[in-house]
């Protein structure tokens, strides 16, 4: 019996020793995305986009001859889970790079872990604090919330709005956005007369919008990414609030507009041109990339409309792929390739990275959009 056990153990060890030989032909890329949970409208399209792209690339031979092994982890937008998955991916799986997380709170939780583990992190989240202060290995592909705030305030000035109420969720994204809003409002002549923070899983916000209405605000600005975005709109219209409602760039998934139904008409928000790809002029440099991604995604996902969030995952993976094609599989070389990449045409805009700018996007990445007849449309000037 003992002999048999020793032989079995030897066989198992032999197998274990043999596997790394197969792994030499693949490159491990990790992904931490909020596929379920309050941010699922961000993480689910991101996950589907990555799977779609990895399948495509592997069918064509992978990146520079090596197939991609995508290791996806669902963090359910919990920073705690993101931390444990990050440690697992960096220390156990020794992934080449990590794409994600989907939300700002999770990204901030793992920023130091990625930096210390010298693993490239391409976050799909928006908060400015992710790249300010700059950490050598941490990049983000979503446009800065400060740009979104500036665009919204410019629009408000055009509409002669000066008194607003601000609602934000208690997530990393909501808090970062609120901070930017409060910092930049005086510069644009906007006065915040009421400000409320709600829980990310909130299901009713009637009391909060009632408070705003009674403070006689001219417009409501909501900064969050949860389904609560749609609930705010519904509740506000139900209590008879007639002023314009502004959302953050976290509104970029048509499901939010669908969830709010007729209440979503006229909502104004900044977003990437991906959402209105079809109506872009032919000479727009992004149009080709956007249309191709849109077609591929909608084909793969049975007609589900693409969102800006899936676009972030596309940008992250394609930036990584281009850097690897240029510099091979040395981590430090790839990192500096990304850091110095210029003119990359992505879904969120045209990226120009630099050692001091690990985001690469400027205000031109955004376009002001609105909801018309249940669809996203450009806000006519």
């Amino acid at each position, binding site marked *: 019996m003992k002999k048999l056990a020793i032989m079995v153990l030897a066989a198992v060890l032999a197998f274990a020793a043999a596997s790394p030989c197969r792994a030499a032909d693949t490159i491990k890329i990790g992904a931490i995305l909020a596929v379920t949970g309050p941010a699922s409208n961000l993480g689910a399209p991101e996950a589907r986009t990555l799977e779609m792209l990895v399948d495509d690339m592997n069918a064509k031979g992978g990146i520079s001859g090596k197939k991609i092994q995508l290791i996806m982890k669902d963090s359910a937008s919990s920073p705690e889970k993101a931390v444990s998955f990050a440690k697992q991916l960096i220390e156990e799986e020794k992934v080449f790079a990590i794409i994600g997380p989907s939300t700002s709170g999770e990204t901030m939780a793992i920023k130091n872990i990625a930096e210390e583990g010298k693993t490239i992190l391409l976050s799909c989240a928006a908060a400015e604090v992710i790249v300010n202060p700059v950490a050598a290995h941490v990049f983000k592909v979503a446009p800065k919330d400060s740009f979104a705030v500036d665009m919204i305030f410019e629009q408000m000035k055009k509409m002669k709005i000066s008194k607003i109420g601000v609602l934000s969720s208690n997530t990393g994204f909501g808090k970062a956005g609120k901070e930017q809003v409060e910092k930049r409002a005086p510069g644009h002549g906007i006065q915040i007369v009421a400000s409320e*923070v709600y829980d990310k899983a909130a299901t009713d916000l009637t*009391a909060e919008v009632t408070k705003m209405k*009674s403070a006689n605000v001219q417009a409501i600005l909501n900064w969050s990414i949860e*389904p609560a975005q749609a609930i705010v709109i*519904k509740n506000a219209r139900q*209590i*008879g609030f007639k002023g314009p409602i502004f959302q953050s760039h976290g509104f970029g998934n048509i499901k939010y507009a669908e969830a709010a139904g007729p*209440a979503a008409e006229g909502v104004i928000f900044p977003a990437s041109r991906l959402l209105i790809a079809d109506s872009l002029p032919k000479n727009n440099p992004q149009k080709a990339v956007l249309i191709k991604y849109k077609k591929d995604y909608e084909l793969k996902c049975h007609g589900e409309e693409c969102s800006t969030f899936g676009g972030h995952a596309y940008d992250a993976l394609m930036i990584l792929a281009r850097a690897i094609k240029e510099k091979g599989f040395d981590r430090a070389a790839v990192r500096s390739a990304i850091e110095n990449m210029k003119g990359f045409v992505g879904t969120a805009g045209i990226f120009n990275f630099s050692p001091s700018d690990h985001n690469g996007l400027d205000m031109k990445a955004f376009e002001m959009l609105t909801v018309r007849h249940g669809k996203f449309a450009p806000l006519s000037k």
Partner: protein
Amino acid sequence: MNLELLFQYIVAGITYGTIYAVVAIGFNIIYNATGIINFAQGEFVMLGGMTAVTLSGFLPLPAAILGAVIITMMIGGLVEIVFIRWLKSPSVLRMIIITIGLSIVIREVALHIWGEGVRALPYFSGTSVSSINLWGVFISPQVLWVIGISSVMVFFLSLFFNYTLTGRQMRACAANRDAARLCGINAGNMVTLSFMLSAAIGALGGCIVSPITYVQYDSGTPLAIKGFTVAILGGLGNSTAAVAAGMILGILESFSIWVLPAAYKDVVSITILLAILFIRPSGIFGDAEAARLKEY
């Protein structure tokens, strides 16, 4: 705070209070019949809402809701027959762990069937923007549906428990199971019936509230916690008190916005739960003596 704002807050509080009360009544029915706290109660609410949304894809709305209630009722009965019935005088701790485990399983199954997205039924009357102006207070017509249907439900439940034979049999089992058995009442069936009834009530609650809030595969757990709070607040087992306690909790939560940031809404309900458990565990309306005498 002006009068209009006060009424708006009260209406918001009553809407939520009604839903919490419905969940609490579900807790109470099962507790009365078996002594079990069924932590999967919130999942019944979620299942009702999700099933109704799926059915409304090809059935008219009233039929979809009826179908959802019946299907959830069957699931409730099945849960009891498969997991609870064959246990011989289980301890309270064992039952709690079993029901918590069941709620997790149901939640994951729901995730696989319906995915992670949020669903909502269409508004019963009007749309997401219609609002009725009652004395300066704007409310969605759905709120009236919620309050109306819940009141009708509570009314029929009290008729059921007081004037029908089956209802009285369930009350007999709750009072003293052995004596009820001696009278020829099938206690085992009463337990199954109590699960089915709780599931049906939860499912109906889920359907009527889903247009204004959403149902998602994990929206059952927070509701179960709030419903449990309300059940304890009113005195475990006392359904009429549950309605009053539901209103109290709903209105307290709603007014808490005035003094605390809105993110602390849940803190308010948990604090109340903790306070009641420390100070007066038999609930505001419960009788400490009677609670100690109950045995299973």
